[in-house]
């Protein structure tokens, strides 16, 4: 139902569906319609013009009624095209699935055969098949189907290969299923949408190809009418009676166009990538829609964030990913933001420089001041100027942030030359010196490596070097060591720690790991459901947490050296941020919950260097 609505929302697809439906209904009703016999010749009435009496679309060279021939011909052409598409889809998909699922030698033999079939020009191949089988509509159908089998086989094989390596196929093997059963019950349901998409985009071609064969006289034989043979007969009279070829020509045009429009619509609606908005281009900066801007606070903070709110508006739902977050970072200081997945820590980090994709992201409130300037009031150009220059990011997986086709040295030099007018040679030398600064051994030769040639730890160092290019004041590191092994993680953390001390950098470190926070950060802010629930100096917060969530989260983390034991867990799940409770978001999971917790918002109450968002903080009566 959803899919149908999606298709019809696309106006062109709806138009295509309408035209196709009209054509299909009329041609299906052909035996019931009050039209003349399509094969009845009347030489006296030959070549009547359209709109003449007794023949709405005129007659052909044998005096047959063109309207009647058109309806019957369309019926035949549609049938042959669809039948050929179904045959090609079934045989081609079966070949593709078998080749893709079994792989190895089976795949090699089958696909080389398909490649050979594809090496022939399709019309030549179809001609050859018809030449062997003899002319006739049914043989033309076989030829068109056979010619299109490779197209399906290759498409479906590709999809099957990617599905056959998914874990649920392994799981099915472990559940005792054999190959054929896995193909039918695990692979086929996941490949089916692709088969439908491929079919909907090829039916038009098939109709055209059948018409082509009939046009050449190899398809339907006289007196049987199909669109191609009508066109072929009309061609001889193109100058004297153009209507005899224009009428079937227009019909072919209408059918193929409507099929293609509808097919594109079906593809757009079913393809998960297009559905999730792969074609919608996010704006250069996050959309800001806020009613008032908080006053600037006094203090020596380099980065001052005040009640930042970022929403995601998807359909009718609003996900409050960040619901009023405030914090500040001084030069040379490291602030850790810790939270579980969905707590809003990454969205907070991305909001600082307007990097949240819009749509669906919207910053709905608060202020982000970098050295006193509010980044949320900046234009796209101003933002681009501060990105990299004042604030730089390090992301979790450098394999996705580095361009796979350029050498890392070239990527660094490009970024250098983008901000400074230096020669190619100077930029390259600067790039090598940056790689040395992030302690990459043999920096000069490593600069010539492609990202995939480096290990995860080395790639992350390149990511750090990229962030350092313009000597930013603030570095935001979003889980930079989560994808790394522990021994490599220790090295990268030590590097980040040294860099910030040497360069007096403000470091905003986003993580889910208490151990990392304890080793690296001066202060920590704990986030839950889009809000900071507790903040303070790292050692104090970890040793003596005020918020029940912080305390219980720390208890959940197994520590090395604790031996074998039962861990304490927090029952339940974090709330969905599109449906937050009125009071404290942690209340449903908290063992100290009272009426005051659920009644209304709990404020973040400061006490000294620390602050906690709880009506009954730990360690107090």
């Amino acid at each position, binding site marked *: 139902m959803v899919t149908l609505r999606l298709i019809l929302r696309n106006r062109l697809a709806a138009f295509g569906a309408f035209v196709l439906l009209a054509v299909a209904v009329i041609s299906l009703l052909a035996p019931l319609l009050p039209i003349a016999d399509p094969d009845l010749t009347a030489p006296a009435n030959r070549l009547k013009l359209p709109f003449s009496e007794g023949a709405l679309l005129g007659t052909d060279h044998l005096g047959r009624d063109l309207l009647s021939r058109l309806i019957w011909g369309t019926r035949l052409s549609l049938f042959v095209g669809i039948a050929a598409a179904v045959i090609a889809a079934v045989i081609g998909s079966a070949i593709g699935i078998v080749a893709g699922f079994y792989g190895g030698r089976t795949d090699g033999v089958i696909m080389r055969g398909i490649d050979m079939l594809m090496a022939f020009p399709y019309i030549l191949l179809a001609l050859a098949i018809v030449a062997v089988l003899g002319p006739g509509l049914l043989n033309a159908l076989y030829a068109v189907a056979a010619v299109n089998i490779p197209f399906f086989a290759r498409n479906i094989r590709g999809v099957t290969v990617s599905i056959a390596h998914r874990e649920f196929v392994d799981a099915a*093997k472990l*559940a005792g299923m054999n190959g054929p059963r896995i193909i039918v019950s695990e692979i086929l349901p996941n490949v089916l949408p692709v088969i439908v998409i491929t079919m909907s985009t090829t039916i038009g071609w098939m109709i055209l190809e059948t018409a082509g064969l009939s046009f050449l006289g190899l398809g339907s034989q006289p007196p049987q009418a199909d669109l191609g043979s009508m066109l072929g007969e009309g061609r001889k009279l193109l100058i004297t009676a153009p209507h005899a070829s224009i009428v079937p020509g227009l019909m072919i045009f209408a059918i193929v166009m409507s099929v293609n429009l509808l097919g594109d619509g079906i593809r757009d609606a079913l393809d998960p990538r297009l559905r999730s908005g792969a074609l919608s281009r996010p704006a250069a900066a996050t959309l800001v829609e806020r009613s008032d801007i908080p006053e600037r606070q006094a203090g020596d903070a380099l980065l001052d964030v005040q009640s930042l709110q970022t929403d995601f508006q998807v359909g009718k739902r609003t996900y409050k990913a960040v619901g009023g977050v405030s914090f500040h970072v001084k030069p040379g200081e490291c602030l850790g933001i810790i939270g579980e997945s969905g707590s809003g820590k990454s969205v907070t980090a991305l909001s600082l420089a307007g990097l949240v994709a819009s749509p669906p992201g919207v910053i709905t409130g608060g202020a982000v001041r970098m050295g006193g300037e509010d980044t949320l009031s900046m234009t796209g150009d101003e933002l681009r100027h501060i990105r990299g220059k004042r604030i730089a990011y390090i992301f979790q997986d450098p394999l996705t942030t580095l361009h796979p086709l350029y050498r890392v040295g070239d990527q660094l030099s490009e970024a250098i030359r983008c901000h400074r007018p230096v020669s190619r040679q100077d930029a390259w030398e600067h790039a090598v010196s940056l790689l040395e600064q992030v302690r990459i051994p043999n920096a000069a030769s490593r600069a010539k490596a492609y990202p995939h040639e480096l290990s995860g730890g080395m790639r992350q160092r390149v990511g750090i070097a990229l962030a350092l290019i313009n000597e930013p004041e603030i570095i935001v590191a979003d889980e930079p060591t989560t994808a790394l092994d522990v021994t490599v993680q220790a090295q990268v953390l030590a590097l980040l720690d040294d860099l910030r001390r040497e360069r007096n950098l403000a470091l905003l470190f986003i993580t889910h790991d208490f151990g990392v926070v304890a080793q690296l950060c001066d202060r920590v802010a704990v986030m839950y459901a889009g809000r900071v629930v507790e903040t303070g100096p790292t050692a104090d917060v970890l040793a003596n947490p005020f918020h029940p969530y912080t305390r219980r989260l720390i208890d959940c983390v197994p520590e090395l050296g604790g031996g074998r034991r039962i861990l304490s*867990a927090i029952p339940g799940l974090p709330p969905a941020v599109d449906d937050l409770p009125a009071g404290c978001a942690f209340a449903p999971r908290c063992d100290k919950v009272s009426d005051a917790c659920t009644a209304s918002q709990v404020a973040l109450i400061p006490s000294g260097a620390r602050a906690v968002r709880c009506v009954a903080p730990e360690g107090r009566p």
Partner: protein
Amino acid sequence: MNAPPLSVMNLEKTFGGGRTLLGQVKPSVHAVQDMTFSVEPGETLGIVGESGCGKSTLARMLVGLLPPTSGDIEIEGTTMSERAGGPADFGRQIQYVFQDSLSSLNPRKTIRQILEAPLIHLLGMDAATRRARIAELLDAVNLRPEFLNRFPHEFSGGQAQRIGLARALAASPRILVLDEPVSALDVSVQAQILNLLSELRKVLNLTYVFISHDLAVVEAVSDRVAVLYFGRIVELGRAECVFSTPKHPYTDLLSRSAPSVGRPLLRTEAAASELPDPLHPPPGCAFAARCPRADDLCRSATPEMNQHTETHEAACYHPID
């Protein structure tokens, strides 16, 4: 029958290799080399190692998803050659729990269909028995029965891992191979799953092979621990001994690298330390290039496993005392 539930002898796995049409030798990678260990009934054997150490290859061989190049895996006294039928043949004895539980569930099947598959294909149960067994399974992993008609995308990571666990338990296997079962989960949910695992082990008298890169998690659940490096076991012993008094310098480095509250950042290791190139492995000990204790012997010959105490062995020429 005194055979251990699971024992592995000289297990090897090589990827690639062979020759091209022109007779050139193709590059090969020894993912698992000469592994020998056994697991006692009711025991949890933890397997720790970093990426590329061969732990997932080992897991996939144990459950029969990948054929070993050489060596043997014995499950409840039955050797490899006697179980030629693949997973369908011994899925009732050993099952596998995936790291990414969501992608191990077919997105187009309901939870009921997913849980029924092993009951139908491994046990051949009829509909009524299946319904009773599924209710039992859901109860064991603390899931509500109304979840049965939903599709996998409606579940959170923790719930999906419970479903994966229920599927693995469906055919009542004696052994579970858990491949990073909690590393994709948040800590609060991770603890829930770890506790559920330890409860199930006691109630159902299961034997676990628990694979993880997280030392603290492995220590919290394991009786014994095997440390893998570059396709080989470098240290094997009781969990409490391996991490508190490591013999192999690599185990020592691992346990000191794990970030932990109240311990300063580790800054000892030289920046050059990387895994060796698997296509061109160095002769001798694979860890030698990163090892502060390495000498010429380490760089020329591969060390054998040495017994240090009755339950603690390590493959090192210069073990830590």
